[in-house]
């Protein structure tokens, strides 16, 4: 088989997250492509949670339609999840809770609790579950042993041995019971790829891009970005600082941006709402700052642990008044890494806030990344005046907000002699001094708004879309963020049914690539915009920005990501009753 889906369900706070992580990481090391996601709630201990790992021989970036092997740590998990098993799917359950399987479901019971009890540590129950899973998926046990040895090396021989024993006992017990039932996954290619979440990728991207200050306030599902950086940045002379709230977080970054450092904050919807005023400050005073929004269910506190893509309007146009903001939308961990580097380069080159519109699916789910290319990481600090030239100019000559053709004016940095100026959120003249005269106001507004009309870095345009498929498709599927992977698979499904399908990922939400969108939609017979929100925000923005071609929205806003088959079905549904 080319792909298997493994799922484990149980109680929150019982270590299933690290169980799933072990399973996914080992499969990744075996050379499979992984997509691993979970269902969880705000509750810390107790309440149901489950983790799913897609293990495939090709790239997969979407939730699975069915489960091959389900590991149940309690009866609740069976009751909730057994329905997801594909025909012929297997249920592994801890024999301790005397599991009852629904009719027609093949169950293998494994004495996980007993194994753990023997080993005097309840966490081995989960390791036994992994052993059992390896057996049923036909995966080599050694790979798991190697990984566990590495992971627990610091904890000493005994812990490693304990893990091994639990693993082996789960494995062999299961094989004995159900060798005949086991699946046989095609072997992985053995390539050592990366496995990471979008939050990981953004933290890495920031450090690689030269960001040395990450300042944030904890919030699901963005906290890991701050937490990752708190571990990493001290190694590079930087700092991750948890501050008192999001108002402070973005303000610290803006202060640092003014002084010439690269700083980033990461938050979710509620934090974005709180940051709106200061995002406007950065727009107005032309200060670089990078802001990450890992979107979750809104509005208000909403659904903190559920996926959604409903902040686009707030990100692109949400503050009072009108100022430049750039909004990037990565769809994979790989894109998230490069977009973060790009975000810093854009911020320094356009002197304005750059927002990375991530989402819970992208931020938290693990995925395989082929590789990240050191040589693609270029730091472009943008137009900064030469201190020597400044000194030569003398006092009161330098114009921080000079009108230029591009609208971007080279900046001075504190510490440079004769570069002194006033940076202010109030309207100002070219030297920065407050000036409210109508003619100046009009010109300054145009300067700021026009400079981001077209984006380029190092003379290269920043691609606004990613298009894949035939030039004149029957069906065009538009996505952004983590629906990207879903739409790619949905397109496959539709192609299998004989449709001529292309996909278009919107990579930049603001400035929206209007011409590219017009051309692509104009060439397609029918266009669908696939979004995880209730009002079709991307389609809304497209119409508003002048993409006048009709499109159909496929929307889901129940807190879960689309499955590819759902998208395909929605597309086909819209053809019903319409002569082809």
């Amino acid at each position: 088989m080319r792909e298997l889906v493994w799922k484990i369900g149980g109680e929150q706070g019982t270590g299933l997250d690290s169980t799933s992580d072990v399973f996914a990481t080992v499969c990744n090391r075996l050379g499979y492509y992984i997509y691993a996601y979970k269902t969880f709630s705000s509750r810390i201990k107790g309440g149901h949670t489950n983790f799913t790992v897609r293990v495939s021989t090709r790239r997969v970036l979407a939730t699975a339609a069915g489960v091959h092997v389900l590991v149940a740590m309690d009866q609740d998990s069976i009751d909730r999840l057994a329905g997801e098993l594909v025909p012929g799917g297997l249920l592994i359950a801890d024999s301790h809770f005397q599991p009852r399987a629904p009719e027609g479901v093949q169950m293998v019971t494994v004495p996980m609790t007993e194994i753990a009890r023997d080993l005097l540590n309840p966490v081995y129950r989960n390791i036994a579950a992994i052993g059992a899973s390896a057996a049923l998926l036909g995966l080599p046990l050694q790979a798991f042993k190697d990984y566990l040895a590495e992971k627990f090396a610091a904890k000493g021989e005994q812990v490693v041995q304990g893990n091994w024993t639990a693993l082996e006992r789960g494995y062999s017990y299961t094989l004995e019971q159900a060798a005949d039932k086991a699946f046989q996954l095609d072997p992985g290619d053995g390539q050592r790829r990366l496995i990471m979440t979008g939050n990981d990728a953004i933290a890495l991207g920031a450090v690689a891009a030269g960001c040395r200050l990450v300042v944030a306030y904890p919030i699901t599902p963005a906290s890991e970005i701050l937490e990752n950086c708190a571990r990493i940045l001290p190694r590079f002379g930087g700092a991750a600082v948890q501050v008192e709230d999001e108002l402070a977080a973005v303000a610290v970054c803006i202060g640092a941006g003014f002084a010439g450092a690269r700083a980033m904050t990461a938050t979710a919807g509620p934090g974005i709402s709180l940051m709106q005023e200061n995002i406007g400050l950065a727009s107005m005073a032309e200060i670089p700052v990078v802001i990450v929004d890992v979107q979750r269910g809104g509005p208000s506190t909403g659904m903190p642990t559920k996926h959604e893509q409903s902040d686009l309007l707030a990100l692109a146009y949400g503050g009072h008044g009108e100022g430049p903001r750039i909004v990037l939308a990565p769809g994979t961990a790989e894109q998230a890494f490069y977009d973060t580097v790009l975000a810093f380069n854009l911020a320094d080159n356009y002197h304005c806030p750059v927002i990375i519109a991530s989402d819970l699916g992208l931020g938290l789910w693990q995925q395989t990344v082929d590789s990240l290319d050191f040589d693609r990481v270029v730091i472009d600090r943008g137009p900064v005046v030469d201190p020597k030239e400044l000194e030569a100019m003398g006092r009161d000559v330098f114009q921080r907000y000079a009108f230029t053709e591009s609208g971007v004016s080279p900046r001075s940095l504190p510490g440079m002699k004769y570069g002194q100026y006033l940076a202010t959120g109030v309207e100002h003249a070219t030297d920065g001094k407050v000036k409210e005269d109508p003619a100046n106001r009009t010109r300054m507004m145009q300067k700021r708004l026009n400079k981001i009309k077209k984006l380029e870095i190092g003379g290269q345009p920043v691609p606004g879309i990613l298009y894949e498929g035939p030039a004149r498709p029957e069906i065009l599927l538009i996505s952004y963020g983590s629906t990207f992977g879903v739409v790619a698979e949905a397109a496959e499904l539709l192609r299998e049914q004989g449709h001529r399908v292309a996909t278009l990922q919107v990579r930049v939400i603001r400035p929206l690539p209007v011409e590219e969108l017009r051309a692509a939609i104009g060439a397609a017979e029918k266009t669908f915009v696939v979004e995880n929100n209730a009002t079709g925000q991307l389609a809304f923005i497209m119409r508003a920005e002048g993409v006048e071609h009709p499109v159909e929205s496929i929307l889901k806003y129940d807190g879960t990501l689309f499955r590819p088959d759902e998208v395909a079905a929605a597309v086909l549904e819209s053809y019903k009753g319409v002569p082809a």
Partner: protein
Amino acid sequence: MATLAEFKTAEKAWWCPGCGDFGVLAALQKALVELGIEPENVVIVAGIGCSGRIGNYIYSYNFHTTHGRTMPVALGVKLANRNLTVIATGGDGDGYAIGMGHFLHAIRRNPDITYIVMDNHIYGLTKGQTSPTSDPGFKTKTTPQGNLERPVRPLQLAIAAGATFVAQGFSSNQKQLVRIFKEAITHKGFALVNTISPCVTFNRVNTYDFYREALVDLDEDPNYDPTDRVAAMRKLMETDELVTGIVYREPESIPFEEKLPGFRPEPIVSQDWRLSREEFERFLDAYR
């Protein structure tokens, strides 16, 4: 070394004639000159309010932030470039109403920043509403029958929050104010200087004359020990903060940026940000 003239800008200060803020401006410029700090190494982070204009008149780097956010902006500047002298300024509304949370958290964090609050017990720029330091019973446009709230006592709050330097100045006592500013700026850590700066247009109660009468100079009291936190607090409670001088100072204060693990002495802005290929790969190894 820079002269006083070099610290001035061509712009004429736009405050009302007699405004206390003129004195704050003059004292600050004088203190900077006397400390031998170069204008290009000074960053004034100012709030929104009449007081917030102060940066416009100092030939330094100036950042006029949004209302209430001077503290975090100043922290960002300091972390980005540790070599800079960072001075945050603003009004009593800016600092103690909308900015109250940031104010106390800045104190807890103790970065090497000087915070000068120009306290006139009123909202000047918005034309005369109650401020958090307004006296009880004070009549303004928003409390036509008198203010009902207990006034913020910034010095007590600062000490309760663990401040390492707390002082109060009076805009018309230039000599003392210059001295306080100099000590505040040289203090290693967060220094609060609440500065009485009368608003001659909207506050007819807390006038120069009122303060000349009311203020007691702690610096002149040989028995007052500004390193005794408990005594400082008691003094403030007893005098209702009608004092000037250095109220409290912690000699062993270590600024936040010196405590940050791994944080380099060299300013971030002048570091080479590129990772080596090896560093990059070591990085990725954690995700393999």
